[in-house]
């Protein structure tokens, strides 16, 4: 159980915690979109909590459940020091799907946030490279939204080198390398 985690968060955020559930030891806290970044920073920097490991960032579309706001962004955090976990959720409305990025807190959230953008169309304010990561560049719409037709495809006609993360110098170095030892 993670009583001290919840107490710590209550001390700091008080009524800003919109909802708290602790099912079978899985602590989940809901917080407003305006304070979620502050909470993530606190979870990482507070010496008692010390959630050094952001395991996943994902999202939920509550469309068929009549959710208001429609989306929720979910952060899964883990502390290597205390062995505790926490799930932080924040609601995101459909007409303004923007959340502050957590890349400045955990660098690992870079690709997670790009995946959430790709699949749900939720943008992360301040992200260094906010673009699709799984679907190709001619893809339209966001596939994991509940109102996206499950088998609607978009064809990629132009070749995509898929390696835009690599710097130009690095790419030249790779291309210069001979791929087959016999042809050397």
């Amino acid at each position, binding site marked *: 159980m993670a009583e001290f985690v919840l107490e710590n968060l209550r001390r700091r955020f008080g009524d800003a915690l919109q909802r708290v559930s602790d099912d079978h030891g899985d602590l989940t806290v809901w917080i407003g979109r305006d304070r979620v970044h502050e909470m993530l920073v606190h979870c990482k920097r507070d010496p008692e909590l010390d959630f050094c490991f952001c395991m996943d960032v994902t999202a939920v579309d509550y469309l068929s459940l009549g959710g208001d706001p429609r989306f929720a962004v979910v952060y899964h955090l883990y502390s290597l020091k205390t062995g505790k976990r926490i799930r932080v959720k924040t609601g995101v409305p459909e007409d303004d799907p923007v959340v502050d990025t957590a890349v400045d807190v955990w660098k690992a959230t870079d690709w997670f946030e790009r995946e959430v953008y790709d699949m749900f169309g939720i943008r992360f304010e301040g992200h260094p490279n906010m673009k699709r990561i799984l*679907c*190709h560049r001619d893809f339209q719409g966001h596939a994991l939204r509940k109102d996206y037709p*499950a088998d609607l*495809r*978009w064809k*990629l*006609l132009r070749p*995509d080198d*898929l390696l835009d993360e690599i710097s130009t110098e690095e790419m030249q170095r790779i291309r210069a390398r001979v791929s087959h030892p016999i042809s050397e």
Partner: protein
Amino acid sequence: MGLKGERVETTRPGSDTKPPESVFTTTLDKMVRWARAGSLWPLPFGTACCAIEFMSVVSSHYDLARFGAEVVRFSPRQSDMMIVAGTVVDKQAPILKLIYEQMCSPKWVISMGVCASSGGFYRAYHVMQGIDEIVPVDVYVPGCPPTPEGLIYAIMKLQEKIERGEPSHYQVVLDREAAEARERKLARV
């Protein structure tokens, strides 16, 4: 391997010794077909679990070398039989097409497993519903994944096709396109 040339019973001039056993006659065309069928060089385009099954086909237990197709090449320029083993997503379609076009003719394509053949259980937003959307396929292998025997059977079927002298599906498509172009030209005249 389908060579049914007649043995020629001749004697050398000035000698009554028979010719060695290994001499036979055939047509050049048949000879080439026999050679092609017996030395397919596979190019594995492996994207998923089917590629693991392909590995066991070329390994010692199933031993594809018995069928003359063990020289696996990872360069399209050195191979003539592409085995697409696994799920091909839309993002990968141009890569598959590019690699296929780099292969020299004559070339054949085996679509291994249901994902490559029809999209399999990925009836979804990201998976091509069969690689024949972009490349002509000669043999389809069902299964998820197909057994090694299944792939070997497909390769044997392809060998039969080559030995019969049937054009590859690639050639069929080329011929059809050429005929259509000719007709369009005639229609203009």
